[in-house]
């Protein structure tokens, strides 16, 4: 197959080199009968997937095991898909070019809801039966994990095994269980029962949902076999500093979305922004120490030849010793043509000083995320940033020569009025005003302020998980209102059609009845829904109609606190009563402090034996 594809198919498609699996640091093994074959699947393009840190970590962890070979597979771009279908060739994982159907496991990472249709398409292209219940004995176990697995229900029909939470440890437990299972003559169900007993594993086929006939609301959700627990506990790594981090990563030949070393300096976030799912599900906050970071980055540069490092986390400035870390790295790579970048910075002028220190050369655009236009709204979402913070920050940035500022906002936040929306335009104007206060000699010659407004999608396990999303008409009205309030020609406004956000809201808080919709949408050819040129809202709406499912029920309906939510069988460690308390505070625009300064008892402290936030979240150096 290998030779045929290389000779006859790849020359006909764009970026052919991304379908060969022969990159520097790609892992090649000689398989034998005992080897466990794992295909790590990213349901989007190669360029997007190769930028994903989770894949790099799990690829490394699995391949450290002598008897496991983990390979990669991405959603083939439409031209490659067409060629595979014309030649009736199966989708294969890259390293060995083995058809997907021949692996022991195919594991998908769920980074965004709009990639779900690609999962079905990849399974079909890989010649794997779509519905888990119909899968034959010799077919792979289809796994899934990642942030969207915190509401796994819309994919329940297609996935055999979900991993809830951080997979670094539990993936090896599952592999170990599989080693033992292979020696027996058990069948698929036997293995699924073994897997279901592992903490953090959710096997959807062992659970049953009952709905109220009249309202369609869930009235019962329970396991059907004794091996399946009632509650699934999310997994997290206690000692991040000692946890595995790859010392080499696969080098894409083509340019990827984040074409640099992305080094995770800490995990979790204690800011408690109420709209942010990552901030809730990735708790507690855990850091890597400076010596560990230093050592691993050095190894990575040597193994890859990359000349840029990005220090990644949910909010880089919140690393407890951020200044010491930056000083250390700047000193170490001084004069070596290695660039440092610091994404996800909070809005404060300290951040600008840090940026100035690391970005000695070009001052490209500065991106800040006030998230909401009015102070009241920012308090509602607990963003913890004031207008003064923002204006101080942009003033400092303008003083240091930045001229291009992009401000990120959301519209459709809970309790939002048109006045709050106007606040976005006002903030844009005040930013422009700050620029003109700076001396002509000092400031950048070109000013550009971009206001970007995303349509808010309420997510599971956040204090806004009960809230009905704004209707598409409401979003449209707000976008138009905002547009009309922008007067200055230096300000531009960017926004998207809210239909994608609407579908995201459906799947982010949907239940397993949506499996029928996904199947219909897949049959209609939906895929690459995250790519504007392939997203077809009409097809999706037809799929809902044909499956007789009302999407508004999931996206727009405001739910009661005591309704059984589709994802409530998962225990993230952040308690429901905390989320309710946070929601109630948001109604009065009351804020909650940064958890490092004041613990608000979210529940994560009592979640895992031996874990204590304030002892361990700051690693001593």
């Amino acid at each position: 197959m290998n030779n045929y594809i290389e000779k006859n198919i790849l020359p006909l498609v764009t970026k052919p080199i991304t379908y060969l699996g022969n990159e520097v640091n790609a892992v090649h093994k000689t398989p034998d009968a005992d080897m466990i074959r794992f295909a790590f699947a990213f349901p989007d393009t190669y360029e997007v997937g190769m930028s994903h840190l989770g894949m790099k970590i799990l690829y490394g962890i699995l391949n450290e095991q002598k008897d496991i070979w983990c390979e990669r597979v991405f959603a083939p771009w439409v031209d490659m898909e067409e060629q595979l279908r014309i030649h009736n060739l199966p989708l294969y994982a890259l390293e060995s070019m083995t058809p997907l159907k021949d692996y022991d496991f195919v594991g998908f990472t769920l980074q965004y809801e709009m990639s779900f249709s690609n999962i079905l398409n990849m399974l079909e292209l890989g010649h794997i039966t779509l519905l888990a219940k119909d899968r034959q004995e010799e077919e792979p176990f289809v796994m899934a994990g990642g942030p969207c697995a915190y509401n796994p229900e819309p994919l329940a029909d297609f996935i055999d095994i979900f991993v809830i939470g951080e997979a670094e440890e539990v993936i090896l437990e599952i592999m170990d269980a599989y080693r033992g299972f292979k020696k027996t003559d058990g069948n698929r169900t036997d293995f699924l029962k073994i897997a279901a007993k592992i903490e953090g594993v959710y096997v959807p086929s062992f659970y049953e949902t009952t709905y109220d006939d009249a309202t369609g609301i869930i009235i019962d959700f329970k396991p059907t076999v004794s091996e399946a627990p009632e509650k699934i506990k999310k997994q997290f790594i206690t000692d991040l500093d000692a946890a595995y981090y790859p010392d080499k990563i696969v080098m894409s030949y083509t340019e990827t979305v984040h074409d640099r070393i992305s080094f995770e300096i800490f995990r979790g976030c204690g800011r408690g922004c109420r709209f942010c799912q990552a901030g809730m599900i990735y708790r507690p906050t855990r850091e890597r120490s400076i010596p560990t970071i230093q050592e691993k980055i050095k190894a990575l540069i040597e193994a890859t030849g990359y000349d840029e490092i990005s220090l990644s986390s949910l909010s880089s400035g919140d690393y407890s010793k951020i200044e010491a870390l930056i000083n250390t790295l700047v000193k170490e790579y001084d004069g070596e043509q290695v660039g440092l970048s610091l994404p996800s910075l909070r809005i404060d002028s300290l951040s600008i000083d840090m940026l100035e220190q690391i970005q000695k050369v070009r001052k490209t655009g500065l991106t800040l995320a006030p998230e909401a236009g009015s102070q009241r709204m920012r308090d509602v979402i607990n963003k913890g940033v004031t207008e003064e913070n923002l204006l101080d920050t942009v003033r400092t940035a303008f003083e240091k020569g930045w001229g291009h500022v992009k401000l990120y906002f959301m519209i459709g936040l809970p309790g939002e009025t048109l006045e709050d929306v106007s606040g976005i335009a006002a903030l844009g104007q005040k930013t422009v005003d700050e620029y003109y206060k700076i001396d002509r000699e000092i400031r950048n010659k070109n000013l550009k302020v971009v206001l970007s407004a995303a349509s808010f999608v309420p997510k599971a396990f956040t204090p806004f998980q009960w809230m009905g999303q704004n209707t598409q008409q409401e979003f449209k009205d707000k976008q138009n209102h905002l547009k009309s309030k922008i007067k200055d020609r230096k300000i531009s406004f960017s926004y998207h059609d809210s239909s994608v956000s609407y579908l995201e809201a459906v799947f982010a808080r949907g239940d397993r009845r949506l499996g029928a919709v996904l199947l219909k949408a897949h049959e209609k050819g939906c895929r690459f829904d995250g790519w504007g040129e392939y997203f077809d809202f009409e097809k999706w709406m037809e799929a809902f109609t044909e499956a007789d499912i009302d999407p508004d029920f999931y996206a727009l309906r405001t739910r009661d606190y005591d309704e059984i939510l589709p994802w409530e069988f998962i225990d993230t460690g952040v308690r429901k009563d905390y989320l309710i308390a946070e929601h109630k505070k948001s109604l009065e625009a009351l804020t909650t402090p940064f958890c490092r300064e004041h613990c608000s008892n979210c529940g994560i402290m009592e979640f895992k034996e031996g874990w204590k936030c304030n002892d361990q979240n700051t690693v001593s150096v």
Partner: protein
Amino acid sequence: MIKIQYQFNRTRELRLLSHLDQQRLFQRAFRRGDMPVEYSLGFNPHPKMSFALAMSVGLTSDCEYGDVVLSEEMDCDEFVKRMNRVLPNGLLILSARICEEGKTSLSASITKSEYQLIVKLAKPLSIEDLSTALNTYLDMPKILIQKRNKKGKLVEKDIRPFIDSLRINLEKATDKYATILMSLCYIEQQCVKPELILASINEEIEDLFIIDPTIQIHRKQLILEEDS
């Protein structure tokens, strides 16, 4: 500061790289190989490196040339050894030498390039017939093709002066594929793409070849001024 000129080949494994991908690959390989590469000055420093010819996607080659400026002295054998340790399968440095200053640039000194093309035949064809077709083609005093100039306007260009020779590789002939050997001339640092010649034969004589990206093109040799 020294400038090293190296010769390398590209085989099947990496023939599908784009030129930009390959540049990036070398840049990273220099770093993995711990080469003291000189960078340009200015706001956006770039490593001082270049290639004599661009390589199109799909091309394999026995004779590519690149150069790189290093800030420290380096033994050429050491350079070859260290680079080959960090380059992936599919790219191999064959030799290296120190470049004296003030010499004509590599790309300016190329006089000829030799190719081997394996191309699908549009219909079964005897060697004799193919040979006759090529000779008829070569006998044309002028071969005009339509070409877009830099402004996007269609202009006519005579490509006959660029063709040094066209031959069939008899050993590799089958009734489905033809293997053609081509020697092309550089005139004022310009040449024509070898697949364009095949398309032009289709145009001028008859439809002999299937012109699509599956044509396998191999650059066998570059002749430099100093060699001839």
